């Protein structure tokens, strides 16, 4: 790690023990707790979990956007290309954001500014980070719109967001995020708000651009079907903590945490293959002001046993080539691997 020629193979993004908290009437609530993961170069890491698991806040934390949504980073490091974003001055981070790190938000209906033409919004980021003329920046905007598959891009660049459909707006967002050829793209549920058919198309565009540009992607989603399609590695979050980390192939073949296994069972694709109805995980996601004792998943877990699972906090441990936060991971392995489908990146 300390050799300069080694940094080339070092991960693009390395998040170490990131913790984020929000102020609330219950005091300071930790919604991301000690989360670590790497995004290697030219690869896609999926961050998976139900809403409330802390995955979106983790994404914001990586981009240094947490203070703007009212949160505080309480600890950890975010090493981007070897340097800690959290230790940089605001102006230094600003120079990286938009240029080296692109960001796509969940809701395309609200993430574009309604008061500016879409072309302007893309050209702005180009002009911010590159020494180009107004004209060149505009040309780049049109080129990007064209690349994400927007027909007659030159005309549409002059239009305002309200004239675009949800899927089209998300394409604009992708064009905006990728306009400066970032080394890392953070995509926070980029397809969740879209219709199923549009989802597939947007995902395809993202996949294409990823392989062409050779960038790293941190892909946040609750949909394991999408994960199978796009990601190389998966980090599963539950109740602010990493509960499992593995390659996509391994996670789908043999999940080592009951929560991952349960998530796999909720996939409609699984229901289709097995002929069983779509499963759902019983109970509700634990709330940040009332984490359960012991394993945070234990009240909803089918494999929970009194004592080991309900008293002490569980540490992450190695299971196979990955990590799991389940005390019974080894003994349950056989049982859990019956869940879900054999999966992996399809292309």
């Amino acid at each position: 790690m300390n050799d300069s020629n080694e940094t080339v193979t070092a991960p693009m993004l390395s998040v170490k023990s990131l913790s984020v908290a929000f102020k609330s009437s219950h005091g300071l609530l930790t919604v991301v707790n000690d989360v670590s993961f790497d995004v290697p170069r030219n690869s896609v890491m999926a961050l998976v979990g139900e809403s409330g698991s802390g995955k979106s806040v983790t994404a914001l934390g990586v981009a240094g956007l947490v203070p703007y949504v009212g949160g505080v980073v309480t600890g950890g490091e975010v090493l981007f290309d070897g340097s800690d974003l959290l230790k940089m001055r605001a102006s230094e981070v600003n120079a990286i954001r938009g240029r080296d790190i692109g960001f796509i938000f969940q809701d395309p209906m609200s993430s574009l500014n309604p008061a500016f033409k879409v072309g302007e919004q893309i050209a702005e980021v180009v002009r911010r980070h590159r020494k180009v003329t107004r004209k060149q920046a505009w040309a780049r905007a049109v080129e990007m719109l064209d690349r994400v598959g927007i027909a007659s891009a030159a005309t549409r660049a002059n239009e305002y967001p309200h004239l675009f459909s949800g899927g089209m707006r998300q394409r604009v967002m992708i064009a905006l995020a990728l306009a400066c050829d970032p080394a890392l793209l953070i995509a926070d549920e980029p397809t969740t708000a879209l219709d199923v058919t549009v989802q597939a198309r947007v995902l395809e565009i993202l996949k294409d651009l990823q392989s062409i540009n050779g960038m790293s992607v941190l892909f946040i989603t609750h949909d394991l079907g999408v994960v199978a399609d796009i990601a190389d590695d998966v980090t599963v979050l539950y109740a602010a903590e990493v509960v499992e980390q593995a390659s996509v192939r391994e996670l789908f073949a043999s999940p080592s945490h009951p929560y991952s296994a349960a998530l796999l069972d909720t996939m409609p694709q699984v229901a289709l293959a097995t002929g069983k109805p779509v499963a759902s995980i019983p109970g509700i996601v634990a709330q940040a002001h009332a984490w359960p004792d012991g394993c945070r998943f234990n009240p909803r877990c089918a494999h929970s046993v009194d004592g080991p699972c309900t008293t002490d906090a569980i540490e992450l441990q190695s299971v196979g080539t990955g990590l799991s936060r389940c005390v019974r991971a080894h003994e349950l392995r056989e049982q859990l691997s019956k869940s879900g489908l054999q999966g992996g990146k399809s292309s």
Partner: protein
Amino acid sequence: MNGLLFLIRRLISTVPVLVMVALITFVILNAAPGDPASLVAGEDASAEQIAAARERLGLDGPIHERFIEWAGEVVQGDLGDSFRGESVVTMIRRALPVTLTLTAGALFVGIAIALPAGIFSAMRSGSRIDRAIVVVTSLGISAPEFFIGLMSVLVIALKFGWLPATGFVSFSESPVNWLKSIILPSLTLGVGVAAELTRHIRAAMGDVLKRDYVLTARAKGLSIKSVIGKHAMKNALLPVVTVLGLQVRRLLGGTVVVESVFAMNGVGTLAVRSVFFRDLPVLLGIALVTAVIVLVVNLLVDLSYGYLDPKVRTS
């Protein structure tokens, strides 16, 4: 193209209001108790003298004919004669620059205070300074202008002698004294507007800053100046500009009192003096002129929507 259509539609919808404003003015003018003719002719006038005055003031003939005749004259810029003899238009034209200067000055003061205060308040929502700003704006809205004016006269003009307490100096006479003479009145009149605008900007900004596109702007690596001043501002301006039209109306009303406090010979002072003469032509001329100014400002405000809100322009 659509913008032009919008402009035309907006212009047309102003016309009925304008006619109604004229009608109200005219009805009051003609429903005055007592006989203006005998008032003009003097207390000891004979019947012939009164009849002559009536003829001279154009008080004969059926009411609808007189309205049309009157409206025709108004459109040509003739508001008739004051009971005191002088032409109403001349009197208003003499007083209007003072009032407009004062209004513009107050608007400037209001915006200059409200913009930073409102934005700061929204960005630091819930902080001590934010709460202090909220309290001060409540006070600013509740305190009468003339009270604030008198206090500033007391402190700034009389105690420290920094600025003249009263009077208006025209720009052509002495630019420096002109500026000195309008600072206190503008501050006085502008405080209420500043308070009101601060509240609106705080609310609008607070709402906009929660939007995803502001986060997008930050994710683009834009400076805080650009995020707030460009991306958030253009969206927050729409609700604020809407109240700006109301503020101009309020300011024009406020000049009545503020001009009186600072002994400025503007439209407001003219109006108050005319009350004691029961000089209705002057009073109604003032009402009509100020109402038209308000309507024009509102028209401009609506037109600015076209710039601020693309949905208006293209739909």
